[in-house]
C-alpha cells in the first residue's frame, strides 16, 4: 500500500492517554483499518503501549480490526473511573 491509500482520522484522547498524546484531539494519517491506526499511534507515542487502552470508533468500543474512513472519530479510552 502506498501513501495515497492512507486516510486522515481524528483521534480524541482522555485521561492518561490525553497526557501521553499531549492534546485532547489530533489528526493522524494511517491505512484505513483500526489496527493500522493503533500501530501508528503506538509508533508516535510509545508510552501508549504501557497503558491499558480501549478504542472506540464513532463512540462504540471496538476490539476487532475494522475498516476506517476519513469520517471516523477514534477515541482512546483508559479504564473508566467515574463515581
Amino acid at each position, binding site marked *: 500500500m502506498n501513501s495515497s491509500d492512507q486516510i486522515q482520522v481524528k483521534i480524541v484522547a*482522555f*485521561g492518561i492517554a490525553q497526557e501521553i498524546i499531549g492534546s485532547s484531539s489530533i489528526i493522524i494519517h494511517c491505512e484505513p483499518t483500526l489496527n493500522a491506526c493503533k500501530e501508528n499511534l503506538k509508533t508516535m507515542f510509545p508510552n501508549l503501549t504501557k497503558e491499558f487502552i480501549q478504542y*472506540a470508533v464513532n*463512540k462504540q468500543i471496538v476490539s476487532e480490526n475494522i475498516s476506517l474512513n476519513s469520517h471516523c472519530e477514534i477515541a482512546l*479510552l*483508559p479504564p*473508566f*473511573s*467515574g*463515581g
Partner: protein
Amino acid sequence: MEAKKIKQMFVEGPISSQFIAESISKHSSKKNIGAHQLFLGQVRQDEINTGQVMAIEYTCYKEMAEPILEAIREDCFAKYPLTCLHIYHSLGLVNAGEICLFVFTSSSHRQAATEACSYLVERIKKEVPIWGKEILSDTSSVWKINQ
C-alpha cells in the same frame, strides 16, 4: 414516560446537599412512591504515594457517555418497576468530602428502588467513560483506578 426524556446528568463541580434536598422534595407530589434509595459518592482523602488526595478532577467523553447513561436508564426501567430514576455525576473539580455522584431511585415498594440503585451504581462505574484525576497535596496527580 420518564425513561424517554433526555436529561442533564452532568453537573459542573460538586453536587450540593441543597440540590439533593430539592430533588427529594420534588417527589412529594408522586403519591404512589413508598421508597426512595439514594447513593452518594463522596471524594475520599486517600493517602497516595507522596500525598493526600485533596480533590478529584473529573472529565468525560460526553458524546459517548450520554447515550450510555440513557441506555443504562432505559435498561433499569425495563428491569425494575420504578416510579422514577435520576443520575447526576460531577465534572471538573470536586474536593475531598464533597459529593461527586448522586443516584436516586424511587418505587412503590422498597425492593425495586434498592436493587435498581445498586444496579445503576455498578453500571455507571463500569461502563460510562468518565475519568478521575486525583490531585494530591504535593501538587502531583494520579489517575484514579476503580476497584
